[in-house]
């Protein structure tokens, strides 16, 4: 049991269908978020546009409020990732990898049901998906009606915690990503765009 979930101990096996977690997979047709990023005592804010493209890939463009783009990422439906553009200050392998894995946790686009398992502990269900390095956890209430939190973990510890709340037509209103090993937090709050257009 520990081999499947080393960071969460004393969990029970569950017969729940692992595919049930797919109902929390966000359906980003197109959504605009106000984004705040706190990293190592620095605060920056901007806008994150997420759009599902005709080829089923998902594009994410982060810009500041005045329109200057910070990055433009593509996540394909089969789990590939591409950087279209990124400003020089952020163009570091470690930064890109961190953002890629953080957003993959949110997009739920790299979940292999065949390798996954469901376990329980303290009235919570843990949907466990092995990744290239470590695991992605999606933790729900006992009935799998509410996504309590998401986690990205190594074999030893939880690295990232995330939330997705208040879904409307498949799109979460609030998304949060919080790193546990260093100060790096991303907060996304959906913006209703019709007000200005």
């Amino acid at each position, binding site marked *: 049991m520990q081999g499947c979930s080393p960071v969460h101990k004393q969990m029970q096996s569950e017969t729940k269908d692992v595919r049930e977690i797919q109902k929390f997979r966000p359906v980003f047709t*197109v959504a*605009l978020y*106000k984004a*705040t990023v706190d990293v190592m005592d620095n*605060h920056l*804010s901007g*806008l994150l*546009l997420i*759009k599902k*493209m005709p080829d089923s890939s998902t*594009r994410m*463009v982060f*810009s500041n*409020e*005045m*329109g*200057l*783009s910070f990055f*433009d990422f593509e996540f394909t439906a089969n789990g590939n990732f591409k950087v*279209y*553009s990124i*400003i*020089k200050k952020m163009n570091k392998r470690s930064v890109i990898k961190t953002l890629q894995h953080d957003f993959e946790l949110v997009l739920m686009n790299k979940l292999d049901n065949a390798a996954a398992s469901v376990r329980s502990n303290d009235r919570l269900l843990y949907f466990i998906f092995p990744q290239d390095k470590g695991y992605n956890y999606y933790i729900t209430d006992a009935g799998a009606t509410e996504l309590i939190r998401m986690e990205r973990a190594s074999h030893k510890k939880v690295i990232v915690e995330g939330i997705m709340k208040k879904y409307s037509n498949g799109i979460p209103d609030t998304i949060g990503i919080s790193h546990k090993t260093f100060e790096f937090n991303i907060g996304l709050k959906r*913006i*209703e*765009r*019709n*007000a*200005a*257009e």
Partner: protein
Amino acid sequence: MNRVILTILILAVGFAAQAQYPGYSPVADLAKFKTEFSVITQKTTSVKSDFTQEKNLAMLSEKIISKGNFWFKKDSRVRMEYNQPFKYLMILNKDKVYVKDGQKENKVSTRSNKLFQQINKIMIDCMQGTMLSNTDFNTRVFENRNSALVELSPVTKGLKELFRSINVIVDKKDFSVSSIEMKELSGDNTIIRFTNKEPNANIPDTLFIIN
């Protein structure tokens, strides 16, 4: 023969400019334009305006539109307040920048960040009419009957990595800025259009205070 070639070259350059900016041709007398621009903008001590900002994401076929209020006051003070569809406040006061994003406040000294200083200078220059002498850019000026288009092409490394060019449309009636377009290397662009402009409006200094 040489005269024929020269004529063809001049025409070709003229057509190229028109093709680049339809409806505009290179300004006939740049020195005269600079003088007029300088004289009138020197008389402008403040500008109060509304603005609409449109970011065009070419490959995503998407636009992000935001709106707000704008204030400029000599010397080197700008306040931009975004109201829709999000709240965001930015105050530029000489070499200081204040940003309020929701409940979070952030103060930055542009002295410690050269790129921030250069971007800050663009906005101030556009309003103060000193953009034609900004050495961070190569400048070309085009015009039609009502407007002048000032094309600022970055020459410094940091700005070149962010912008292909910044195009400022100036209303020839009063030499006020109608719009600022920032063209990014990716092909995306952001246009800030100023409306309901009030030159030399009475603007209190308190709007620009950074504590």
